[in-house]
C-alpha cells in the first residue's frame, strides 16, 4: 500500500476512526496498530508477513534471553543467533543472486567456465529497514544500554509500525519502543506539524519526485547521452531521490505525529552540506547514525590510529552502499563517499572557520562530489558509469534540451527555494509556525498542486526497493 494512493487514504481514514474509538485503552490501541500495520504490509504481499512476524518474535525472544543471561559466552551465542538469522534472511532475499553472479564473473575471469543458476527471489519490501531496526534493539539489549521489553504487543507494534515500516526512518528501540507503552499526548502543535509534514512530504513525492522521474530516465536510459544532459539528468536525480525519500520520511513522521508518536528526523537539508561528513549528518540520518553506532564504532571508530580510522570509514560506507542494493554500483557509491570522508577528514580537523566565500566554495565542491556520487548510484553498472562519465566530454546540446531544462527548473525550483527558506529560518518546521491563515493558504496551494499532478498509477517510492 503506497502513501500516494487512494487506497491508503481510505485505509488511514478507517484507521483514524478506530484509533479514536480505542482512545481509552492502550492495549486495544497497540492491537489496532499491529493489525493495521500487518494489513498495510500484507496488502503488498501477504506471504512476507510471516517473515516480519518471525523477525519480530525472534528478536523479542533473544532480547529476553540476553536480559536474563549473565554468562558472557552464552550472551554472545544468543546475539550471534539473532544477527546470523537477521543477516541470513537479508542476505538470502537481497544478496543471494548478487553473490552468485559476482562469484561466476570472478571464476570466469580466473578461466573457469561456470553457468550460474540464479534463484527467482522476490525481495520483501522494507526488509532492510525492519531488519536493521530489530538488530539495533538486540544489540542495545546485548550492550545493556536498554533492558529487554516484556511487552510483546508493544514490540510487535514497534517493528511493524506502518508509517515507517517499509522505508524508515530506522527507529531505535530506545526512542520508539517506550512510546507504545505510554499514553500519547496529541497536542494542537503536534497536529499542526503532522498535517504540515504529510502535505509537504506528499508534495515532494507527487509533484517533485514523480515529475522528475521521466527526466532522469530520459538520460540514464539513453544509450548515448550528451554531456550537458548527463549533468542535468544527475541534478534531476539528486532532486528526485531527495524528494522521493525525504517526502516518504516526512509523510511517515506526519502520520506518526497525528497519532501522537514521534519519529526521528531523517533529512536535515542535505544539499546545504559543506563537506561529505556534513552531508552524512544531514542525509538519511537514521541509517548514517545506525552505521556509526553499530558498525563504525564497533570496528573501533577513530580510537585505533589514523589508518585504522580510514579503514573503518571506508568499510562502513562500503557496507552502507551495499545496504542500498545488491549491485556493484551501490558498493562503488559507498566507496566514493567513504573516500570523500577519508580525504576531507584531515582538512576538516585543521581548517580555520571559513568566510562566506570559503563556505560557498566548500558547498560547491561538496555538491559536485555528491552529484557524481548520485551518478554512480543511478547508473546501475560499471559499464554504464564509464559511458556516462565519458559522455561528460561530449558537449552536444540535444534539440529538446530547452524543454528538459524548463521541466527541470519547474519541478526543482519550488523545492530548492523552500529549502533555502528553511535554511535561512534555521527551522525545518518554519511553515508550521506561521499564522494560521498563511499556513492554510500555503497548504491549500500545495494540496492543489498534489491533486493536479497526482498520477492514476501511483509511483512507488524509490527506497522501497532497498
Amino acid at each position, binding site marked *: 500500500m503506497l502513501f500516494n494512493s487512494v487506497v491508503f487514504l481510505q485505509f488511514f481514514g478507517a484507521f483514524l476512526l478506530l484509533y479514536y474509538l480505542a482512545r481509552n485503552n*492502550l*492495549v486495544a*490501541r497497540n492491537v489496532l496498530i499491529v493489525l493495521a500495520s500487518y494489513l498495510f504490509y500484507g496488502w503488498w504481499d501477504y506471504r512476507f508477513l510471516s517473515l516480519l512476524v518471525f523477525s519480530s518474535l525472534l528478536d523479542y525472544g533473544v532480547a529476553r534471553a540476553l536480559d536474563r543471561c549473565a554468562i558472557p559466552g552464552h550472551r554472545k551465542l544468543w546475539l550471534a543467533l539473532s544477527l546470523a538469522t537477521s543477516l541470513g534472511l537479508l542476505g538470502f532475499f537481497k544478496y543471494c543472486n548478487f553473490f552468485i553472479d559476482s562469484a561466476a564473473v570472478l571464476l570466469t575471469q580466473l578461466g573457469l567456465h561456470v553457468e550460474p543458476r540464479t534463484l527467482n527471489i522476490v525481495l520483501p519490501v522494507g526488509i532492510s529497514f525492519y531488519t536493521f531496526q530489530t538488530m539495533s534493539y538486540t544489540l542495545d539489549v546485548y550492550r545493556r544500554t536498554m533492558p529487554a521489553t516484556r511487552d510483546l504487543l508493544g514490540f510487535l507494534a514497534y517493528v511493524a509500525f506502518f508509517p515507517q515500516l517499509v522505508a524508515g526512518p530506522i527507529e531505535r528501540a530506545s526512542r520508539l519502543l517506550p512510546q507504545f507503552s505510554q*499514553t500519547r499526548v*496529541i497536542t494542537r502543535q503536534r497536529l499542526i506539524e503532522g*498535517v504540515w509534514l504529510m502535505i509537504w512530504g506528499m508534495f515532494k513525492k507527487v509533484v517533485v519526485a514523480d515529475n522528475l522521474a*521521466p527526466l532522469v530516465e530520459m538520460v540514464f536510459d539513453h544509450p548515448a547521452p550528451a554531456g550537458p544532459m548527463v549533468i542535468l539528468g544527475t541534478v534531476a536525480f539528486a532532486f528526485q531521490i531527495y524528494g522521493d525519500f525525504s517526502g516518504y520520511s516526512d509523510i511517515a513522521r506526519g502520520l506518526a505525529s497525528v497519532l501522537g508518536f514521534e519519529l526521528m528526523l531523517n533529512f536535515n537539508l542535505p544539499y546545504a552540506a559543506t563537506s561529505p561528513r556534513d552531508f552524512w549528518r544531514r542525509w538519511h540520518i537514521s541509517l548514517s547514525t545506525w552505521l556509526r553506532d553499530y558498525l563504525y564504532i564497533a570496528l573501533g571508530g577513530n580510537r585505533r590510529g589514523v589508518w585504522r580510522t580510514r579503514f573503518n570509514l571506508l568499510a562502513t560506507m562500503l557496507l552502507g552502499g551495499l545496504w542500498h542494493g545488491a549491485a556493484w554500483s551501490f558498493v562503488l557509491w559507498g566507496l566514493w563517499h567513504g573516500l570523500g570522508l577519508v580525504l576531507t577528514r584531515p582538512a576538516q580537523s585543521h581548517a580555520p572557520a571559513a568566510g562566506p566565500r570559503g563556505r560557498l566554495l566548500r558547498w560547491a565542491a561538496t555538491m559536485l562530489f555528491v552529484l557524481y556520487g548520485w551518478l554512480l548510484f543511478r547508473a546501475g553498472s560499471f559499464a554504464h558509469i564509464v559511458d556516462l562519465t565519458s559522455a561528460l566530454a561530449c558537449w552536444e546540446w540535444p534539440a529538446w534540451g530547452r524543454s528538459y531544462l524548463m521541466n527541470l527548473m519547474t519541478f526543482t525550483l519550488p523545492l530548492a527555494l523552500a529549502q533555502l527558506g528553511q535554511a535561512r529560518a534555521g527551522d525545518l518546521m518554519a511553515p508550521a509556525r506561521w499564522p494560521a491563515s498563511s499556513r492554510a493558504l500555503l497548504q*491549500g496551494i500545495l494540496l492543489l498542486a498534489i*491533486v493536479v499532478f*497526482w498520477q492514476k498509477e501511483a509511483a512507488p517510492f524509490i527506497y522501497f526497493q532497498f
Partner: protein
Amino acid sequence: MGGTSAKAMTTARTHLRSHQCVFTARDLAAIAGAPLGVLLLLAALFHLAAAAGWLPAPRPTLDMDRTLLIHQADSSRSRLDAAVILVGDSSCLMDVSAPDLTRLLGQSVLNLGLLSYLDLPSFGILVRNYAHANPARLETVVVLLHPESLRLQAPSAYHRAQLEDYLSGRDARATGGIGGRLQTALGANLARGRLVARLIPTPLSGVYGRFYGFTHDFSRWLEAHRGSAIDPQRFDRARAQGNAEYRLAQRLESESRLLRQCVPSGVRLVVGLTPVPRSFVGADHDATCGRILEQWAKWLKADAVLAGLPASMPDELFASVTHLTAEGQTLFTQRLAAELQTAVQP
C-alpha cells in the same frame, strides 16, 4: 512471580489511556479543515474561471497520443495549402513523409494520420474540417491503414472522447475511478489541460522521449514535417507478437460509409494499405491484402485503389510490426508517390 508481575503490568496498561487529545474540535477544524477549505476554494475558482472564459481554451497535450490528436485536429482546421491530405492510423503517420511526397508529386501534401485506436468516422471528421477550412483547395484524400487496424473489433472510446472533446472545446472527461473523479471535481483536468500542458512540456516515454524529447518538441516536429512522424524503434522479429491472419472487420462497412460522406464531392478518395514486415507474413499475404483492399474500396466507394503498394517489405526497414523506420518511410513514400501519380491521373 514473574508471571504475576507481567499480568499486573498488562492490567496496568489496559487501564492506561491510548492517547489524550489536547486540542479542541475547533482546532481540528482549523488545522485539517482550513487547507481543505482553501483547496475547495481554489477548485471553485478554477471552475468559475473556466466557465467565464478567463482561462485559455483546453489543449491537453499531456502525452504523445494527445499531442498527436491535438496537432492533427488543429492542422485540419487551419488554412493551409495542401491539395492532397493523408488520413489513417499511425502507419499512415509514420510510414509516409509528407514533405517528400509534396516534392515527388509536385503538389502540397498534408499528413493527418492519427492512431489505430480511432475509427474511420474520426478520420472523416478531419477530412470534413480540412475541406471546410480550405474550400476548393482539396483535390485528393488518401486513406491508408495497416492490415492490423482493419481487423480491430472496436475503436478506443478514450481516444475518440479525447478527439471529440478537443474539437468541441470541452475539457477532458474524468477517467480512473474514484481518484480520477475526485481530481476532475477539484479542477485538476482544467488546470492540466488549460495551463500545465501549455506551460510545461511533458517528457515522452522511452525511445520516443529520446528521439523527440517532449510533447512541445513532438508538436514542433509534426509542424515541420507537415504532420508526418518517424518511429525511432527497431523491429525485433523475435519479440513481435500476434499473427498475420488479416481480415476486414465488419464494423468497417458502416464506418466506411460515414467516412465517404465526409469527403466533399469532386474530391478523389484513394485507398491503400501500409506494409507488414516480410518475415511476419505468409506467402499468400499479397493476395489476401488484394482481396481486403478490393472489398474495403467497395465499401468506401473509393475513386482509386493503390493496389500496387507493397504489402510487405524487408524486416530491416521496420521499426515495429506496424511502422517503418525513417529509411523505410523514404522508400514507401517513393512507392506511394508513384502509385498516386498513376492512380489519380485525370
